[in-house]
């Protein structure tokens, strides 16, 4: 049973460009959340998707947007990249409902130069 899978693993972008990161949730999971983890810090919640809609959002600008597809997979898009967007982007999945374990993928390392 595959866990949460993310792609790409690493990527380098230039300031001002746009990036799309992808996530496939663990089998049977319908809720996907995205986190940003800067070097040496704890993950910060970006937003959460359920039934193809954004259900919760953290304190991130509108440059950060997402999408969830009918098969529950998800994309994170970041526009107008800044140097400060360089971080590990983590996808987490769970089944909806409080108390269900939240599983994380291994992340996508984004470097903005």
């Amino acid at each position, binding site marked *: 049973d595959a866990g*949460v899978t993310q792609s790409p693993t690493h990527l380098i972008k230039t300031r001002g460009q746009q990036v799309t990161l992808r996530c496939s949730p663990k089998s049977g999971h319908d*809720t996907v*959340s995205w*986190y940003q983890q800067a070097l*040496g*810090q*704890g*993950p*910060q*919640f970006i937003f*959460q998707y359920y039934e193809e809609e954004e259900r*919760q959002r*953290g304190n991130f600008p509108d440059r950060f947007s997402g999408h969830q597809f009918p098969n529950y997979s998800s994309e994170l898009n970041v526009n107008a990249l800044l140097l400060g967007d360089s971080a590990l982007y*983590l996808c*987490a999945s*769970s089944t*909806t*409902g*409080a*108390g*269900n*374990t*939240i*599983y*994380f*993928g*291994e*992340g996508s390392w984004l470097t903005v130069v």
Partner: protein
Amino acid sequence: QQQVKQSPQSLIVQKGGISIINCAYENTAFDYFPWYQQFPGKGPALLIAIRPDVSEKKEGRFTISFNKSAKQFSLHIMDSQPGDSATYFCAASTTDSWGKLQFGAGTQVVVTP
């Protein structure tokens, strides 16, 4: 502002010793307190979690102690092993905002042989 404060930032413990990591929170609506373990290049993995209706939970060598009145909780790693060397994050969430985890800044634990 950081809703969950974690200390120490790092600690070194000898094999067989006890590692203790502390976290404090302000939001009394938090009702779920997990600890995650993260190895370099990997995503966070759930270690153990507690709800505020119990004061202690033990799973193998890992114990969470919870003090609701002080709004503090801690992780104890008994009989620490070199394989426990990792970064540990405490986190908190509410039932109403399930999946939106507020993480501490992390503690890097090094277990020496």
